[in-house]
């Protein structure tokens, strides 16, 4: 990739006034309305802090909605006239993004198209093979890789040699070695504290650690790594302060896979959040390990201003639990829900339809059991077999059929037929509506 392709201005008369090539970068995410992508915020904050990119790279972030039409996505991007466009790709927006890439490539052949995110990283070579419009895929954690990639583009270097990147060398698709994870997460500037993301009501999220203590076979949260990497307490407290005191923001949340990771951690989070909770700030929909929630932990959550939590059990079927590498203790689960209800915290319980090992009656049994528990919110979803997950790797072995294209929805399992999965989806939806319709 030479700098002429990366910088269309290079051939213009202005070239003589610019001693070095520059890049205009558009970062694009498709999510729910109003949400500002935290992942892109991190990417941009990290790159903007890089000395070698400073004053040479300009960023624009486009947070569009997941239901946006690919042509309009392309339109919005092309209006920015970027040299590089980076997409954050998840299973729910991948099809639209692939189509938008195809349009962009035809409209502006010189544009550099980079994809990253959980949908593409684990299958980077396949994505490039299937999508000739895409130049590069960033695998795994993106901040350092994307920054180095931009440096390479500016310097006219071979981008596909950057660790963590899969790209094209002529007609060949090549993957550079993996990039080690960032050990010190504080080295990634905060998107909130750096002004990259402006906090907005109920749509802003704080990350306090990366990784997950669990290894659920359908989930990509742990990203094939072990261990938890935390941001410092000072950094988290500063972000809490920034969100809680932002104009118009009364509620925000956390993206952590387990908000109550340890009791000590929950206590210091409550300490940090309590002053804001006293002034009316609220924390919504944090994910918790509910089987560890006692009355004391529920009180800590309440002290932190938490008004709602999200949790499993995903399934109560013994075989599916084993296949999913999940543990489930019904007594402790019930105790956790009851403790939260006593503390006045709404509990959303999630079930997954189509987990290998479950049959239709396990799913129905799970819904019936949750109804009896009366947690506040019951939410079901159909299994998506995400790239890079254990289920993806073992699909053939366990007889799991799913869509090759995103969103990779389960088609059928050994335990549940195609038709029964569709039936269960509709039945669960009716049940959820009926359950939610109450005083």
């Amino acid at each position, binding site marked *: 990739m030479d700098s002429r392709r990366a910088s269309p201005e290079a051939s213009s008369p202005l070239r003589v006034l610019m001693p070095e090539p520059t890049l205009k970068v558009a970062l694009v995410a498709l999510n729910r309305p109003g949400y500002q992508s935290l992942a892109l915020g991190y990417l941009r904050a990290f790159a903007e802090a890089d000395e070698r990119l400073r004053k040479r790279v300009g960023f624009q972030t486009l947070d569009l909605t997941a239901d946006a039409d690919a042509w309009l996505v392309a339109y919005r991007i092309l209006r920015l006239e970027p040299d590089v466009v980076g997409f954050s790709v998840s299973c729910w927006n991948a099809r639209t993004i692939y189509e938008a890439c195809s349009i962009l490539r035809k409209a502006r052949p010189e544009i550099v198209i980079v994809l990253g995110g959980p949908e593409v990283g684990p299958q980077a070579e396949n994505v490039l093979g299937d999508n000739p419009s895409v130049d590069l895929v960033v695998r795994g954690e993106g901040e350092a890789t994307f920054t180095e990639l931009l440096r390479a583009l500016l310097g006219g270097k071979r981008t596909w040699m950057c660790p963590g990147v899969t790209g094209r060398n002529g007609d060949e698709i090549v993957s550079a070695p993996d990039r080690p994870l960032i050990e010190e997460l504080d080295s990634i500037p905060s998107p909130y504290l750096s002004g990259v993301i402006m906090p907005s009501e109920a749509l802003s999220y704080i990350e306090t650690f990366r990784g997950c203590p669990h290894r659920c076979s359908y989930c990509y949260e742990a990203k094939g790594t072990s261990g938890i990497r935390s941001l410092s307490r000072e950094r988290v407290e500063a972000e809490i302060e920034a969100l809680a005191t932002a104009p118009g923001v009364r509620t925000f949340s956390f993206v952590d896979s387990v908000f109550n990771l340890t009791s000590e951690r929950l206590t210091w989070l409550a300490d940090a959040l309590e002053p804001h909770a006293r002034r009316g700030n609220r924390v919504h929909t944090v994910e918790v390990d509910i089987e560890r929630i006692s009355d004391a932990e529920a009180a800590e959550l309440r002290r932190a201003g938490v008004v709602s939590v999200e949790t499993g059990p995903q399934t*109560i079927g*013994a075989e599916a639990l084993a296949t999913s590498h999940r543990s*489930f*203790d*019904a*007594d402790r*689960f*019930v105790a956790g829900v009851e403790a939260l209800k006593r503390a006045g915290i709404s509990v959303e319980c999630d079930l997954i339809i189509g987990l290998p090992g479950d*049959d*239709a*009656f*396990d799913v*129905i*049994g799970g819904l*019936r*059991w949750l*109804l*009896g*528990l*009366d947690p506040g919110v019951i939410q079901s979803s159909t299994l998506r077999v995400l790239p890079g997950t254990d289920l993806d790797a073992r699909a053939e072995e366990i007889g799991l059929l799913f869509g090759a294209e995103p969103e990779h929805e389960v088609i059928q399992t050994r335990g549940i037929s195609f*038709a*029964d999965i*569709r*039936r*269960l989806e*509709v*039945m669960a*939806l*009716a*049940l959820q*509506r*009926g*359950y*939610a*319709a*109450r*005083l």
Partner: protein
Amino acid sequence: MMGWELRSCLLRFTDIMLGDNGGTWCRRCHGAREETLRNPADVIADVRAAVDSWDAAPGPNIALAGAEPFRHPAIATVVADAVEAGAQRIRLDSDCSGFSSATTAEAVIGSGVRHVQFTLLGSMATLHDSLCGTAGAFERTIRGAKTFAEVARASNTPVQLSAHVPVCRHTIRDIAGIVGAAATAGASLVHLALVDEHLAPAAAAPWIGAACDTGVVNAVWVEVGGVPFCLAAGWELHLAPIYRSVEGAKAAACGRCPLDGVCGGAPQGAGGAVLAALQPPADADGLAARISRSFEPPAGSHA
């Protein structure tokens, strides 16, 4: 009415009778009936008793049925009393004509009603109106249901619309269309109840199966009461007993089989020809075990 559990299978509601002989029914099966209304004090006493005796989450849930709620002079008081007593879900079983104005729908939702169930006998006005004996009834029901749903959506209030469909000789060939009409009106749940002892379940089963499929492709769940498991091969998940235990409810007309604990069995009054057609499914033992499992709390949980 036959001896099956015909009420909603997903959420349990206790019926509170506002009167008798009300609602929408097939006049070709049952002829004309005179609706009578109960004394408000008696209704309120029943509401309080139902709420006080409610013994299992989620609830208490009550359905105001038996007469058209909008014709009951004390309906507002009854609903207010149910709210005060602690009812969590209040359902009106209504022809929805009272929701012809958005103002009324707003008031009803504001009073605490979150569930409305209407009855359809046909997928279009000519069929429904002729069977229920009231010109214009179909349009009023569909329009009222839509208004209720729109008002709820506008106020961001979660509600559920459901449809009750009595399956008899006169409605059987139209029930797939009725499910489609219910979906258009905004229902997310349809109860098909086989209520005609002169309608052979074996003959009705294919029509009911098609209606269930119509529901699936329209994102409407169709639950079926009154059909034994042995006639529902391939669409067993739609049978109401899977969702609510009907142990002991099996009709005597049907012989013993492994599904006794979960199946409603053959219709009462079924003749020899009907009974001869009923054979337990090939995997009746396994099916019974799997269904029963869904009624048990998961291992390690408290009862």
